[in-house]
């Protein structure tokens, strides 16, 4: 019986994690392999979560450094990928809180949504016209308010459970479900609307 690709990658991760945990001090080969496997994904997540292209690489680096020093405490109760996503989410949320603290716009503040809706889309809509699919998605995510974007990314990119999202954001489970539903609707509308615009421009 053939194994699913996700099972294969999980087995490979477990093997590499064990090798990294048992490696002598200074030997980073196994951990570097793990970095190599996840760096693209973690970088995209950091960029989309914080909407901070300049600091995304620094954030991703910090995530891997934290993961390295926490690796001995990783017991394998969840997958390495899931564990890494949780480190990344916590690190990015702390970064957002520190950055936005000065502007006193809390992540769970509904008024922030209205302000951001007024501020971002004009720029994003203009940029979207020239973007390829991946960049188009980035443009749409950037045009979304943090109150919807962050739960959407945590749910549909990081594959965290509603409970984990609620705990990380410090909001109720029903609020998480509602925000994800609204975020998906907004994302879908923006994506489909954008596809129509692109299609018309091409014809």
């Amino acid at each position, binding site marked *: 019986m053939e194994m699913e690709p996700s099972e294969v990658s999980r087995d490979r991760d477990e093997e590499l994690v064990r090798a990294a945990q048992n490696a002598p*001090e*200074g030997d*980073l080969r196994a951990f*570097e392999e793990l*970095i*190599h496997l996840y*760096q*693209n*994904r973690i*970088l*995209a*997540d950091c*960029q*989309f979560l914080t909407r901070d292209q300049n600091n*995304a*690489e620094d954030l*991703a*680096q*910090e995530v*891997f*450094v934290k993961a*390295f*020093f926490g690796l001995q405490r990783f017991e394998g109760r969840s997958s390495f990928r899931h564990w890494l996503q949780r480190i990344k989410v916590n690190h990015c949320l702390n970064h957002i809180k520190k950055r936005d603290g000065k502007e006193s716009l809390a992540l769970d503040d509904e008024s922030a949504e209205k302000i951001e809706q007024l501020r971002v889309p004009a720029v994003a809509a203009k940029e979207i016209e020239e973007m390829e*699919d*991946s960049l188009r*998605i*980035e443009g749409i995510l950037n045009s979304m308010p943090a109150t919807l974007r962050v739960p*959407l*990314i945590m*749910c*549909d*990119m990081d*594959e965290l*459970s*509603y409970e984990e999202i609620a705990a990380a954001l410090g909001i109720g489970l029903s609020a998480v479900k509602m925000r*994800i*539903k609204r975020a*998906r609707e907004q*994302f*879908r509308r923006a*994506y*489909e609307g954008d596809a129509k615009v692109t299609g018309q421009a091409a014809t």
Partner: protein
Amino acid sequence: MNPQEENAGEPVRLLQEQEREPSSGFLARVRRKIHRRSATSQFAAFSWHLPRAILIEMISVFAHIFSAMDGRRKDS
């Protein structure tokens, strides 16, 4: 179906495929940060253990001196 996937239509699933290529020095910078932090923690541990080791040595030296003095007093 996972309840979280119920409303995730086609464009939303595209989010799972999103990746960004880091700059060429990414891995080297992570490696450097790890080495730097390891060195710092080793130094911190050393600066805690060094005074402790000195104190233990001094106590054992004094203990030897006192036991030698005590021995001499008994001899005389």
